[in-house]
């Protein structure tokens, strides 16, 4: 990855990023991983940024329409994850079954 690439993506990320992200970009480790995963997919050319971007934007606006007056419960990373997962499924990169199976395996393992 060339250093410049990330910054050229950054411009567009900066536009979709937090309406309410807070001082810290990441509140929890999973937020960090989810964010990094999405950008890494773009950096590696596996998904076009605009595809991720519009999905993030629409996940946010869907949430906003459904949660008027609840703005303080908004969580950007959650909407990002929802958009990312849908993107991966729609593009056939992973299937919903694989995801659910993976989660089930882990639950079984961790009790």
């Amino acid at each position, binding site marked *: 990855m060339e250093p410049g690439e990330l910054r*050229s993506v950054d411009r567009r990320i900066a536009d979709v990023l937090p309406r309410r992200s807070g001082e810290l970009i990441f509140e929890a480790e999973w937020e*960090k991983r989810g964010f990094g995963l999405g950008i890494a997919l773009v950096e590696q050319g*596996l998904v076009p940024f605009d595809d991720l971007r519009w999905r993030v934007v629409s996940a946010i606006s869907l*949430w906003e329409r*459904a949660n008027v007056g609840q703005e303080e419960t908004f969580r950007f990373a959650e909407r990002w994850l929802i958009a990312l997962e849908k993107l991966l499924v729609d593009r056939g990169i992973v299937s919903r079954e694989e995801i659910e199976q993976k*989660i089930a395996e882990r639950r079984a393992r961790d009790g």
Partner: protein
Amino acid sequence: MNMPYQGSPLEGGEQYPVPEADLEARVWALESLLAEKGLVSRDAIDRVVASYEQDIGPMIGAKVVARAWVDPAFRRRLLEDATRACAELDIAGMQGEHMVAVPNSEGIHNVVCCSLCSCYPWPVLGLPPTWYKNPQYRARLVADPRKLLQEDFELDLPNDVEIRVWDSSAEIRYFVLPQRPVGTEGLTEEELAALVTRDAMVGVARIEPGAGSPR
């Protein structure tokens, strides 16, 4: 923990709130699947996260400020055309918006806001803090900057210091060039950069001598 939802939370998106443990598990599942398929390694994710946390953000602005403190010719170029001066330091990513550095001095303190929305000099400062987007901050800063700085940021400016409020727009992004603190003559450029905070570059804080510690 709440009841785990059935299937995926992704359809619709109104199911709320999603339990933290479920979110964590979903990210972990995606990360594991992509790594197993050889598509995205965990290292690649680490690298992305590290660049966002370290390279993009206030540190970039701090480098610009420190350079301006040690290099008068650079300072002149920065005040003349900040976009171009930042490009000298290999700060890219500016497309369309013009960066303007506003210098603090003994008699003038600058502070930045965006009264219409949340325009922010992100190429040098990274992502904006929550309060920057708060309508209260925007409105109060424009109406009575001295009071807002005092009440919300504990920044007491002497009455003879003029406060200038810079209203950013989609086209022009202002950031503050703070004064170099006294007593920092012996510091290297890198040590100076470590003193520069995001808040000082927005103009809601001053850089206290000895406030930061050299890396």
